[in-house]
């Protein structure tokens, strides 16, 4: 309470956003950012489940090197479809919108002391646009499938007989939802901060979401036009990306990665924001180097636009461009290193408690360190020529995307669960899930580094028998991860149904969202708070 002068605890615990209005329709037509966040959560967790099933199928198919798969239905084209759906669902439907749409929507206004986001109706609209996009993309499951991988590389995406037009239309629509969400967050952060809540006092999670939103605004439109051009290419044959008509497929890759490289920071930056909150709270210590972490988020966002060519070192890009992109990519490592060191120093002379959310944060640090360091390998041109498009890359980005983003995501769910629903999720179940996810993750993806070094290319249905033992270890690991996430799901459902009642601030955190009741009232705070001190004043 030290950083808020007005008393914000409310005696009327009965009135909160969950019971403010009743009925399904009140949910579907709500403009309350908290309810929209819950609706996002339900949809995204559903998509995550589906994407996860595809992941398990992909790993299952790779258990054997040859044609004899565990299930005769899995032929090469079915495998390619599984692999594509896994990528498209996980990237466009789960990880890109995941943290901003759920936690950003719920927490950003509360952390700023605002009553709602700047444009509440736009917020609802972007949810439905997102659902529409997801529905369009999902319709390809019944209308011709999709087998291009999530990258839609031309000319394959122009030539394949699968329904690429629908898929890119879906991704385009979801991109629009992403733009609108980002726009909403930027204006909210600029305009709706509570009195006294200066940019130097907003929590680091808000900084992360803010930096993310900037990337969403600046990068997504280019993806939009690229995807539209693929559609135009297939229907009209405009020729911009089709080599048969004079186009340059490498230009497509430039356009695609101009979005998709910053997009990996759309994914990881919010996760870093969550980890900043978790580590500070569970070390009960002020964050080390607030300014450095905040600015490094912006630095990563800015530099992320200048490094996309490191996906294209061997793609027929010129040698000069390769070296140029390589040196800039190295620079991304600096702000990332700053963040890692600052988190670890935050624990120094703190009071560290390993509850489930903190375990996930530790898991993030562990896995992200490995993911980040291998990223440096891939950024150096000479090494990447060998590793490009092998399992080394697969392992690297899963360490960052799953080990980084999903660990932080799950940690965030356990951390803010009491704030969302006013109930505690089971800590025991949470810890069990962490053990399975963490060990399973390393069992799955560490062997893939070795496979990559040995030269196994990615997106292979059949592979050389020499790679079989490591692939089998990897597949077994994927079952462990699957089980771990199931346990986490059980913990969430159990918490919803039978969780014990949570107080306003069960973890003893200092940021603004914990100063209101759990769950928060309809307008977030009974009286608009006045902020007088920073977000991490653990004195």
């Amino acid at each position: 309470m030290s950083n808020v002068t007005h008393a914000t605890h409310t005696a009327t615990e009965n009135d909160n956003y969950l019971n403010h209005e009743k009925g399904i329709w009140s949910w579907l037509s709500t403009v309350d950012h908290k309810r929209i966040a819950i609706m996002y959560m339900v949809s995204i967790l559903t998509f995550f489940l589906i994407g996860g099933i595809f992941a398990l199928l992909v790993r299952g198919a790779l258990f054997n090197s040859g044609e004899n798969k565990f299930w005769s239905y899995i032929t090469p084209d079915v495998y390619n479809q599984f692999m594509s759906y896994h990528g498209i669902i996980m990237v466009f439907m789960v990880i890109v919108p995941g943290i901003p749409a759920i936690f950003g929507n719920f927490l950003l206004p509360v952390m700023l002391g605002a009553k709602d986001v700047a444009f509440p109706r736009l917020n609802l609209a972007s949810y439905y646009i997102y659902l529409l996009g997801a529905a369009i993309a999902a319709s390809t499951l019944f209308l011709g499938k999709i087998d291009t991988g999530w990258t839609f590389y031309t000319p394959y995406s122009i030539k394949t007989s699968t329904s690429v037009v629908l898929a890119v239309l879906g991704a385009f629509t979801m991109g629009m939802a992403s733009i609108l969400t980002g726009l909403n967050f930027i204006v909210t952060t600029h305009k709706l901060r509570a009195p006294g809540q200066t940019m130097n006092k907003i929590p680091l999670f808000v900084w992360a979401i803010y930096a993310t939103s900037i990337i969403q605004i600046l990068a997504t439109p280019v993806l939009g036009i690229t995807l539209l051009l693929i559609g135009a290419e297939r229907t009209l044959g405009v020729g911009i990306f089709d080599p048969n008509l004079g186009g340059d497929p490498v230009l497509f890759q430039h356009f695609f990665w101009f979005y998709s490289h910053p997009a990996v920071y759309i994914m990881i930056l919010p996760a870093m924001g969550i980890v900043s909150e978790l580590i500070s709270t569970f070390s009960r210590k002020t964050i080390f180097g607030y300014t450095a972490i905040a600015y490094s988020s912006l630095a990563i966002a800015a530099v992320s636009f200048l490094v996309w060519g490191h996906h294209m070192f061997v793609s027929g890009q010129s040698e000069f461009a390769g070296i140029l992109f390589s040196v800039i990519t190295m620079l991304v490592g600096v702000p990332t290193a700053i963040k890692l060191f600052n988190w670890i120093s935050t624990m120094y002379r703190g009071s560290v408690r390993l509850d489930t959310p903190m375990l996930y944060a530790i898991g993030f640090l562990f896995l992200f360190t490995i993911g980040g360091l291998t990223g440096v390998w891939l950024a150096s041109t000479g090494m990447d020529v060998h590793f490009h498009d092998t399992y080394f890359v697969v392992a690297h980005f899963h360490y960052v995307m799953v080990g980084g983003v999903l660990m932080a995501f799950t940690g965030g769910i356990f951390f803010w669960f009491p704030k969302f629903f006013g109930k505690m999720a089971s800590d025991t179940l949470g810890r069990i899930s962490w053990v399975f996810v963490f060990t399973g993750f390393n069992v799955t993806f560490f062997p893939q580094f070795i496979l990559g070094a040995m030269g196994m290319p990615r997106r292979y249905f059949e592979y050389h028998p020499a790679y079989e033992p490591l692939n089998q270890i990897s597949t077994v690991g994927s079952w462990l991860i699957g089980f771990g996430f199931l346990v986490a799901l059980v913990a969430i459902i159990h918490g919803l149904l039978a969780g014990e009642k949570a107080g306003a601030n069960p973890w003893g955190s200092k940021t603004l969202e914990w100063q209101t009741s759990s769950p928060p009232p309809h307008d977030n705070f009974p009286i608009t708070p006045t902020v007088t001190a920073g977000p991490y004043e653990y004195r």
Partner: protein
Amino acid sequence: MELVVQYSLYIISMVCIFVPFFGFGMAPPTVITAAVGVFAGNAYSLIVQQGIIKNFIKDNKDGGKSSPLIPVLEEAQKAIDAIENPGLAMKNDHHGEGHNEHGEHHIIPISVYVGVLLILLLGTVITVAVAQVDFGAMNTVIAMLVATIKAGFVLAFFMHLKYDNLLNRVIFGSGFFFLMLLIAFSAADIFTRASVVKSF
């Protein structure tokens, strides 16, 4: 730390932006002008928007030993405040809610709109007329120059950007900035590709 981070960021982006141009061997004056421009822009934003001088004065004034620099800086800050028309625009963004009460919106008189319309029509005539004459490669340059001037008028008056706050100008400018990055880096690849010679 703030300054260190900011300047390192700044140097990083300088390197990023100018390396492709150095690679092309573009005229050094262009690079120097651009570099000076960006430096000036950054200094401006540091001094005016972030109030570096203001903070420095505040931090050092009550520190006991007042430096001889302080009075000079105070004068400078006063001058900046006078230019920047205090109480408007940027103040809002830095103090969040509660400071947004600033009178009526600026209304541009019709005469200005008519003037802009005439300029735009004139610009169109010039563009079409110039295109009939063959200046070689200069045709594109002239056409783009005229188009940019026209666009500037639309932005400044029709879209009221001239009277808008700095943040909106920065937001809009950033769109063009990132577009330049897309062009520069795609071109840095496409126009430096080695040609492959087949011997049979």
